[in-house]
């Protein structure tokens, strides 16, 4: 499965990479909303992990544009605990689900699996 990790913090992206890459997934990293949209157009990933809090273009804005580019792409929002309201709004806008930081790898694994199953 091809997945895109969007976070302004490169170390967060690295975690996703280090976790999913050994499992045979193709993991692409983007550190800004703008870069993310470019990569989505070029690489057409199946799953996007999208951080909500980012400078310049925030996650919600990126989500809206992703949904315009390709509604089929599954987007999982990444947020902090006290910002769940925004995350819930994101689901209304078409996000697949949301995860809170600090990240739970059990959940990440399950989510990736579910998306993978839905694809098949």
């Amino acid at each position, binding site marked *: 499965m091809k997945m895109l990790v969007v976070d302004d*913090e490169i*170390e967060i992206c690295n*975690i996703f990479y280090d976790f999913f890459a050994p499992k045979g997934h193709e993991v692409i990293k983007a550190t800004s909303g703008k870069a993310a949209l470019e990569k989505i157009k070029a690489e057409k990933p199946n799953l996007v992990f999208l951080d909500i809090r980012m400078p*310049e273009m925030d996650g919600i804005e990126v989500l809206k544009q992703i949904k315009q580019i390709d509604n089929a792409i599954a987007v999982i929002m990444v947020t902090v*605990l006290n910002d769940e309201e925004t995350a819930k709004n994101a689901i209304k806008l078409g996000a697949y689900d949301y995860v809170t*930081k*600090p*990240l739970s790898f059990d959940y990440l694994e399950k989510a990736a699996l579910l998306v993978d199953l839905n694809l098949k």
Partner: protein
Amino acid sequence: MRRFRAFSIRTKFILAFIINSIFIGSIILILMYIMLNKGLDRIENYYLENEYHSVQSAINNELDILLRNAKDGAYWDDIYNYATAPNDAWAKSNVTDWIPKNFGIDLILIFDVKDNLIYQYGNFEEFQIGMDSSSRPLIKSAVKSKEIRGLSSTSKGLAYVAGSPIMRTDESGPRNGTYLYAKLINKARLEKIKNLTGMDLSIINKIEVVNSTAVGYIDRPKSLNDIYNNLKDKQSHKFNIYKPNYQSAFVYSILKDIDGKDIGMLEVIRPRKTIPLVRDFFIQSSIWIFIFVILATLLTILAITGFILKPIGVLKKTIGEIQRTKNTLTRAVVNSEDEIGILAKEFNNMLDTLNKSQNDLIETQNNLIKAERMSALAELAMGTVHQINNPLSIVMGRVQMLQRLLIYKASIPMPDLDRDLKVIEEQTQRAVQITNSLLRYAAPITFRFERCAINKLLKDTIGLIKKQFEEENINIAENLKTNLPYVEYCDHRQMQDVFMNIITNARQAMPGGGKLEISTDYDEKEDMVYIKLTDNGCGIPGEHMDKLFTPFFSTRADGNGLGLAISYNIVKGHRGKIEVESKLGVGSVFIVKLPAGQKPGEKV
């Protein structure tokens, strides 16, 4: 007009009154003066009439006396006999030597029954008492029938004339001739009438020649000829002249002789003593009344305005006191219940309302401050969470990965372990840094103040970054003011942090290179040293401007958002200010203002 507005109420009242008094007073006085003059005219005319009549009576009286004297002579039997048989010796001793002396007679004529002149005393020709050829028959006929009296013109002046038929004492027998007396109206006669009537008068004879307008001290208002012609035209026997500006009033009448011929004029002059007297009295008393009224009214106005102004003064004092002491519990004590009393009451009510709303305002303000503090605290907490969350997430992710390796593979490959531990160490270090900064921001800053040359401090700071800036193609321009005053109380190290922070921000705003201008200046009026740092970087968006100095506000992923917040606190600790101006795409200007001589508090 503007000056009038600035006058006090009392002055306005007084001015209004004085204008009013002068205006109305003048009108009243002028009217009264006119009325007084008219009244005085009437009184004068009345007296003039009276006195004219008394002069007339005096003249008539003289004539009556003369006639009685003549009648006494005419009814004397010796005269009766004399008229029949004239006897010169008898006439001399009984008439000529006796009568003129005792009765002041100037002319005695005796005619016999045939009207022949049989006796003459005085100059008959001189007198010509109606005895010229034309008028003689008239006199004669008049004398024949009855006694007669009247005026006559003589070459010596006017004269009284009286005549009577000669009769027996017991009136038995027929008329036996005519007996006639004449008396010159000479100076002595006039004096007598003057004394009798108390009037100034003159008998004017020979009107044709008298043309003078002056009699002694008196200026006649018109020439005598004019007056005579006027009287003749009016067919009037009397002519009054009264002019207010003359010192005397005049009355004239034509004098006729017994033949009805105009022979002269009677002039009665009345000195107008009362008018100037009354007028002077009037003017003097008017002035005194005026002064009295003005004084009385001034006193009244002072008293009334005192009554009115006293409560206003109390109000004014109260307002001044409130302004001075800021104590809105002060109240104006005014006892009157008029409009000003009501005003004072309303003023007090207003103060009550003001107090209430002030209290409300303070309460609202307190609530607001409380709410703001809460929100600031919440923001701080939220910022901390966000800042700390990322490194924690990374650490936790790495730890979970290591755990999984242990669980599923029972061993961790060395490169993986090495990589994960390195990341864990880095991120933990980062979290520590964040907490340290937070501590530094939240904990009170301790300053070590000393005299500081700002220009040198800036040069030192520039020295630290010069190389890096050159590498990044950023040009530094120094524009430092010479003779810049020392900042007497300055924490050298902390202030360098502030400049370093601003310079770093500028560097990050110019990723492709640019220009940073550092200048200093001194504001003598405010005793402030200005440090101005201008870059031509990307600028700050308007919506970020008011959040610039709030903690954890950062647009950079690697920034913790505390740099400017801490700088702000440091500058505040120096009693200084940081001001920012920025324009997107043009650049930003940070101005740090530090008081040159003022000693700030030790801690903030």
